[in-house]
């Protein structure tokens, strides 16, 4: 009886560790292959000729027409800088700098990858069309309610993710840079 219990325990641990770790590593977790900069996660070798096995597995389960590394690189945030998952009832403020790129785009998606913008409204923000401060920085607000300045309007949703894509981002050509800085995401008011 004791042997059977130990064996069942070992099998439970094996299944839990094996599939749990895989789900985490290929989902929102960052173990191998993915890279996290603040709240932003990217898979830098997704657009290279030799992606690592974790990136290959991630691409196999994600229907994403990945950018070639020469085209650009996409970062996804599922939570704010404090680690709290996004809520459609809150306003989020993005400020800070992005790595050097020709330009960047920002949009919000739901779990199915659909853009969560109300019908007839702008689906995205483009870095070249932002209102900027005197020091050339730009503050962006993401909210389902009217927000001042650069506003990415989203439809009310339980949760969402933000996608920030840098185009022609020379910084990532070598993929080895470690001091990359991405905008911080701060939760402001919630309804």
């Amino acid at each position, binding site marked *: 009886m004791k042997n059977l219990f130990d064996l069942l325990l070992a099998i439970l*641990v*094996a299944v839990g560790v094996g599939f749990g770790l*895989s789900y985490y590593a290929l989902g929102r977790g960052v173990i191998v292959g993915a890279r996290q900069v603040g709240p932003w996660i990217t898979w830098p070798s997704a657009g290279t000729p030799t*992606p690592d096995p974790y990136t290959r597995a991630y691409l196999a389960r994600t229907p994403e*027409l990945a950018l070639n590394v020469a085209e650009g690189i996409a970062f996804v945030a599922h939570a704010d800088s404090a680690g709290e998952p996004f809520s459609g009832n809150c306003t989020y403020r993005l400020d800070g700098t992005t790595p050097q790129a020709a*330009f960047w*785009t920002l949009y919000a998606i739901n779990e199915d990858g659909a853009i969560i913008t109300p019908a007839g409204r702008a689906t995205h923000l483009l870095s070249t069309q932002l209102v900027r401060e005197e020091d050339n920085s730009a503050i962006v607000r993401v909210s389902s309610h009217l927000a001042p300045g650069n506003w990415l309007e989203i439809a009310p949703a339980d949760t969402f993710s933000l996608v920030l894509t840098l185009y022609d981002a020379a910084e990532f050509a070598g993929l080895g840079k470690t001091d990359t800085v991405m905008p911080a995401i701060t939760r402001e008011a919630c309804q």
Partner: protein
Amino acid sequence: MIRTFLFVLGGIVLGLIIHLVVVLGLPLASEETNWTRISALDALDKPRILDVPSGFSPNPFRLDPTFISAVCRLSLVSGPGVVSGLLPDTFWSVAVFDSSNRAVYGTTNRSGLGQSLQLGVFNPSQTRLLAQRELEITEGLLIVESALDDIYVVVRLAMPLPELADRYRAALSGLTCTNAPMRTTEVPLTPPGGITENGAPIPYDRPNR
């Protein structure tokens, strides 16, 4: 107690093995990939414009709504693939992927291409013929080598204003996506001195001029 601990330890080791099998096996076991999705589109030898995602519309390829994209599929078996055309004066990029969804090549108009896209994709044997100058190609063609014969090419056009969509869609529709004819340079089959009965070349003394 130690026995239970050893079983748990064994479970963790087995779990790590399961994890590695899942990670390595997922790309092989996946039935629906970008290649299968693009193969299902009517995009063989012609550009197929992908829907620009809008509010809550399906976004099967997780596309950036800032861009209008076209994809075309090519088989290099019948000749090098050529994608060419004139694109609007906006940021655009082109990427080549093979049927295993690996990135083969990518570039943008900012690398000096301007508005003209002239991309040639060759398999290794075609590249060898090209290196031996036994394959004729159009001058100015950007040469890319793909290890696999089945490829797809994605062209993305940045759309700063939604009003430009129709114009950009027309530009992408006008892209040529086809196989170049295999025009090989004539190479004499027999050496200039002729061959012996058993096929060996006869030494040829070039006449003095």
